[in-house]
């Protein structure tokens, strides 16, 4: 199928040479066809769209991206710095394609499936069909539509009912090719009472300009618990636009840690829908950017049912002439009584050219709820700086230590010790670098 008729030349360029992935699975073919239709119909967002007010994607539309194919495969040694030793299973994708030689899926306990999506489609179709492309709304969002139209493989994680899989599952998307566009996809299903930890890692090798358009769907059944660590450490020239849609059943628990370090321009939408009563959500977000980076996080906490609890903490550390954007939307639907939702946005500006736009957005349609939000934008606390100086630390050292601490507070909550350690080293190196800059 060709993509003739796309509204925007940019979308047209992304769909050039597009061939509908062939599969014998009719429901999947249908969803891809619908997504393609939407990709052709939807417009590319501009800063005139409220949802994209601060994020100008013009630089992205200036690069002619090709679908990634036939890329050179990195060796295991290139990946070693990304690998989390605690992980029991690992799926590695290189420029969007599954790399079996770099992945580990053997020896998992019964009830735990970690597999490339394409390979799972036959055996697990009945589990996948109700969820794949059912939570991330390709009907409304052009980048989700593009991803879904290109959907042929991805990561699939399923934890069976009442199974606990404490060791993390790591999914690494490595990008190596210049001007390649890839469409990473992930589906995680934690059945009722199941527990798992997912580490999603987007990493760039080298400094290539490439584009990742990623979609992740997470489904947590009744009483299930999903811990989700998301690392975005793309190369400095990369574009990264992604959506994670999480759907939570009754009393489910979703704990997310989103760390944004890389990419020239990144946009992450985290959409969490509380479909059942009493779900519990924790959302931590940290963006640490400098130079001319732009990092935009849009979160949506949709309390569609009563008695949900959500704690959200978003922090940005912005150096150089970088620009951070945070839009935190909380919706409390009619009837979602006894919702308790709190959002905090704290931002540190390390230079006078750094910029942050932060906006809470509360839409509350129930009366017996508790919703709190707060936002601060500022420099380091002078009392803390003085305290450290009074103990002999130079101003620069005091400032970098406090900047580090601001990030470390959120990093410390990541449930994977080796990641905590490595991320804190990264942050320390970067904060000290910022101080010198």
């Amino acid at each position, binding site marked *: 199928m060709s993509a003739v008729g796309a509204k925007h030349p940019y979308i047209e360029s992304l769909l050039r040479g597009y061939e509908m992935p062939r599969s014998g699975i009719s429901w999947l073919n249908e969803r891809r066809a619908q997504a393609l239709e939407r990709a052709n119909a939807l417009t590319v967002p501009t800063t005139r769209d409220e949802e994209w007010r601060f994020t100008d994607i013009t630089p992205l539309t200036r690069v002619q991206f090709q679908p990634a194919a036939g890329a050179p495969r990195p060796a295991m040694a290139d990946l070693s710095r990304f690998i989390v030793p605690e992980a029991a299973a690992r799926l590695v994708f290189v420029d969007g394609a599954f790399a079996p030689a770099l992945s580990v899926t053997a020896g998992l306990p019964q009830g735990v499936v970690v597999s490339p999506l394409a390979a799972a489609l036959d055996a697990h179709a009945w589990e996948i069909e109700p969820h794949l492309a059912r939570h991330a709304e390709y009907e409304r969002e052009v980048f989700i539509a593009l991803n879904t139209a290109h959907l042929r493989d991805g990561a699939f994680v399923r934890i069976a009912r009442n199974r606990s899989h404490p060791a993390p599952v790591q999914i690494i998307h490595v990008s190596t090719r210049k001007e390649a566009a890839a469409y990473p996809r992930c589906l995680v299903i934690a059945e009722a009472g199941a527990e798992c930890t997912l580490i999603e890692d987007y990493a760039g090798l080298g400094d290539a300009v490439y584009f990742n358009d990623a979609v992740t769907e997470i489904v947590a059944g009744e009483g299930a618990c999903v811990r989700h660590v998301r690392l975005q450490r793309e190369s400095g020239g990369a574009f990264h636009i992604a959506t994670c849609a999480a759907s939570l059943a009754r009393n489910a628990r979703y704990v997310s840690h989103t760390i944004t370090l890389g990419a020239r321009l990144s946009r992450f939408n985290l959409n969490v829908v509380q479909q059942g009563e009493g779900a519990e959500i924790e959302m931590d977000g940290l963006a640490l950017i400098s130079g001319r980076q732009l990092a935009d996080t849009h979160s949506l906490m949709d309390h569609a049912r009563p008695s949900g609890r959500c704690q959200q903490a978003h922090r940005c550390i912005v150096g150089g002439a970088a620009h951070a954007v945070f839009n935190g939307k909380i919706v409390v639907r009619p009837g979602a009584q006894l919702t308790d939702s709190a959002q905090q946005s704290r931002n540190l500006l390390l230079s006078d050219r750094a910029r942050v736009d932060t906006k809470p957005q509360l839409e509350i349609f129930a009366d017996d709820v508790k919703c709190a939000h707060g936002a601060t934008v500022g420099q380091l*606390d*002078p009392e803390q700086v003085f305290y*450290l100086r*009074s103990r002999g*630390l*130079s*101003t620069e050292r005091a400032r970098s230590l406090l900047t580090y*601490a601001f990030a470390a507070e959120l990093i410390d909550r990541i449930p994977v010790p080796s990641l905590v350690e490595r991320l804190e080293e990264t942050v320390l190196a970067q904060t000290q670098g910022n101080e010198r800059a």
Partner: protein
Amino acid sequence: MIRADAKVLLEVKGLRARVSGVEILKGIDLKVAAGEVHAIMGRNGSGKSTFAKALAGHPAYEVSGGTARFEGRDVFDMAPEERARAGLFLGFQYPVEIPGVSNSAFLRLAYNTVQAARGREELDPLEFDDYAREKMKLLDMDPAFLDRSVNEGFSGGEKKRNEILQMALLEPRVAILDETDSGLDIDALRVVAHGVNRLATPGNAVVLVTHYQRMLGYIVPDYVHVMEGGRIVKTGGKALAEELEARGYDWVRAAA
């Protein structure tokens, strides 16, 4: 201990200081020699804490007149960190919480920075841990405080112990302890005072800034100075503190 031949460590003359443009200190004179313990007393608002913070170099306190020399060096010519490295220590009345920085990392960084400035050996994390635990015994502190964030969630008494722990680690020549007794219950007061006594040597000096006499029951001062309206209005021996406790500050004002 007053010794006629003791070296003068800190000498303040005619010190004036302002906060937000308002003059708080209106000419302070103070001479502190090695081996001495001084107490600066006075009612709230008399300028005691301003004096302590101005000497430590808090940026909100603007020195508008007078001089201060610390071991011969001009204090106001030194950045706060230089004063700390040279051995001038301020124990904070309200120690600042620093979430995200472990107490052990902070203490080690401070210790090693000061050691390096003094041309002495730095310690690696394991060595420092042993060293810090040893010092913590002096203050009856649980080693678990090393793993917590700096002062975060500490009770008032725990924060004050942590201040004295820093004094123990950084080995200042002059320690100015700003209201270290406030917020301490009687047991904690005894422990903290005992720790300060153990740290006092013939080579260093302690300046206690306090509102009440009760700490002076444990740390016996050689000199007691009474501040009033940004000046030292009376100086005496330890008996002066007892007299203040019995008769109140109005009596000094009337006598001054």
